């Protein structure tokens, strides 16, 4: 639980400030001028939600739910509208029943050791960087951590992972470019087993979800690592670039068809992008957001707490 007690709220808020400013300054602009909630206000809210990549369908749902709740309430002040909207949005993010890996207990890790985390995603989402930060977090929590470099495709993937591993002070198992990613994963787990490693993180090559053969490769990795560690992978994290629009939902859907995704990591939220697609991914696919990245340093990987996220957006 170490780093959980250590959440850098300030950084999270700083990172989200631009996001917050964008969406919710606009919302307050939209609602504060009017005492009574009318259709134009809701239309304006729709624009603001959609501009935050929440998507037309989900935005419409959020607004409908809020509107229904407000029907029975006479108090339609700005504060009340916002707190209702906030509640509706928070509930969506809390709706996933999947456990949150950032919340994992020492007992659970001890029970499974090696606890295996597979990290997947499209090209350029930020998988390797996320893994570096993740390894660092777990290491600081006092676990022994091993990384498997199963991205044998991209040029210099090994080197990049090496540098992150050095920063986090953890070991990497790697093979030459072009090697079978499954075999690297296999060797990583064998090594972890012999050396009693607590947590294994496996990096994979970026793959577009439209590439059938690459997606099947994921299935194979899963099959092969099960031969060493029957419960592997304990978690499969999908890394999504926070700049991504509605395609992120399709990515999540497609990856899910080949490998069970247990959680999301949303990266690059320190820009002006809002990452609003997570609302639909949570509600439609029951995949919770486990972590968000709000910067490039080690501390910028934050455990995702829906309440905090939505509140940070509104404050």
């Amino acid at each position, binding site marked *: 639980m170490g780093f959980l007690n250590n959440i850098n709220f300030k950084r999270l808020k700083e990172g989200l400030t631009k996001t917050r400013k964008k969406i919710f300054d606009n919302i307050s602009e939209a609602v504060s001028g009017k005492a009574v909630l009318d259709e134009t206000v809701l239309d304006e809210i729709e624009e603001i939600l959609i501009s935050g*990549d929440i998507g037309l369908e989900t935005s419409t749902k959020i607004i409908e739910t809020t509107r229904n709740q407000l029907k029975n309430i006479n108090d339609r002040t700005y504060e009340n509208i916002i707190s209702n909207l906030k509640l509706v949005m928070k509930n969506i993010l809390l709706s996933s029943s999947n456990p949150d890996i950032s919340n994992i207990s020492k007992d659970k890790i001890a029970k499974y050791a090696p606890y295996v985390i597979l990290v997947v995603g*499209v090209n350029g989402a930020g998988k390797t960087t996320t893994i570096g930060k993740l390894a660092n977090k777990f290491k600081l929590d006092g676990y022994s951590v091993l990384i498997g470099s199963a991205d044998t*495709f991209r040029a210099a993937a090994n*080197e990049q992972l090496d540098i992150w591993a050095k920063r986090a002070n953890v070991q990497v198992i790697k093979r030459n470019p072009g090697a079978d990613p499954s075999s690297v994963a296999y060797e990583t787990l064998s090594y972890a087993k012999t050396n009693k490693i607590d947590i294994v993180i496996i990096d994979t090559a970026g793959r577009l979800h439209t590439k*059938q053969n690459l997606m099947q490769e994921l299935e194979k990795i899963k099959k092969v690592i099960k031969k060493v560690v029957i419960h592997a992978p304990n978690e499969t994290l999908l890394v999504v670039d926070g700049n*991504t629009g509605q*395609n992120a939902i399709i990515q999540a859907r497609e990856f899910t068809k080949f490998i069970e995704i247990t959680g999301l990591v949303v990266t*690059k939220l320190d*820009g002006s992008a809002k990452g609003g697609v997570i609302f639909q991914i949570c509600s439609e696919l029951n995949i919770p957001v486990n972590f968000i990245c709000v910067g490039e340093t080690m501390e910028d990987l934050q455990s995702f707490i829906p309440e905090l996220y939505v509140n940070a957006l509104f404050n």
Partner: protein
Amino acid sequence: MLEDLTLKLDKALKKITGQGRISEQNIADSLREIRRVLLDADVNYKVAKQFIEDVKSRALGKEVLASVTPGQLITKIIYDELALLMGGRNAELSFNPSGITVILLVGLQGSGKTTFSAKLAKYLALKKRNVLLTAADVYRPAAVDQLKTLGSQIGVPVFSAEESKDAIKISADSIAYARENGFNTVIIDTAGRLHVDENLMDEIKAIKEKVKPTEILFVVDSMTGQDAVNSAKAFHDSVDFDGVVLTKLDGDTRGGCALSIKAVVNEPIKFVSMGEKPDSIELFHPERMAARILGKGDVVSLVEKAQQQIDSREAEDLEKKLLENKFDFDDFLKQIKMLKKMGSLKSLLGMIPGLGTKLKDSDIDDKQMIKVESIIQSMTIKERQNPKILNGSRRKRIARGSGNSIQDVNRLIKQFAEMQKMIKMFNSKSGKKMMNNYKNLRIN
């Protein structure tokens, strides 16, 4: 590529097909649907709104001529608007006629700059330019290694300074190096940066001041959502880039950000990039993209791709053989190899009009081609030239040799026989007449 958008527009347009004149009422539903389509495609909210207004004002009151349906009319209007919005023309790279052409690549993290810089280098090298790649990403771990590896794959030298953390100096030094060593083109790969990061935006401005690029290209992930307009605008305000590169178009993104960015910064989209192989780069053609969005396919791209990859002499040979009914397994194998050079089967078929939307859920497996290849390669030369001699024991041997089942072998031989029959038919008089009819067909 943009099949989803096409599918939905088709659905919306069906609603107004078969009505006499376009009115506020009969177009309302369709416009709402088009708005939904655009928003789902990540077209920026405001851009989508403007687009709908434009389409509406152009469509209202239009009398539907007897020869076209309202659907076709609206399609035409949307097509024109889309093409207009995305550029209305294609814009080529400009070169420095007297000195070194410097191309500076900028963009957010993970947009695909490094991969694209190698693709661009290969593309320009093929155009007989003497290209130097500069590794000016001093932040991302192993970014320099990545570019070096890619450079050696495509045979383009990479300028780097391992110890240096000064991207401005590296960039300037690379130009000097290029001058001394006879390069006429330098492509500078810079670090990914967020448009809100003032320090890094200052750095890119400084690089621009120092090297005075001929072209600055903004590289953007085609899956980007609503915020594309913000990052594009901020980069444009800082470095006033000359063009846009859309990457990862081989995903199923609907690429709405192409519309948005063009609308906001009014710079042309110059390249689209798909796939991880160094030759998967194409010039951007707004008309084709618009046509593609509307489900009319992209035959021109397909033809160009084919021209690039197919050896014209081999093609002539093949044509001759076809005309003489001498098409054998060896020719078939050659054909498969040519096709493979052009890219994945699915991406090729996606360019064929009318097929794009239908392919969406089908599994076209490139492995099938490999299977066919392996079977043919397990045949003797005699067997390839004269498939008639393929008896049971030969087929068994081929199956074993190629690691396929005997059924697979039988199927291929049967299909090949049918193909030969078809070729014969086309060579007959009636076949030729049929082909001529095809040539005269006009595609609306």
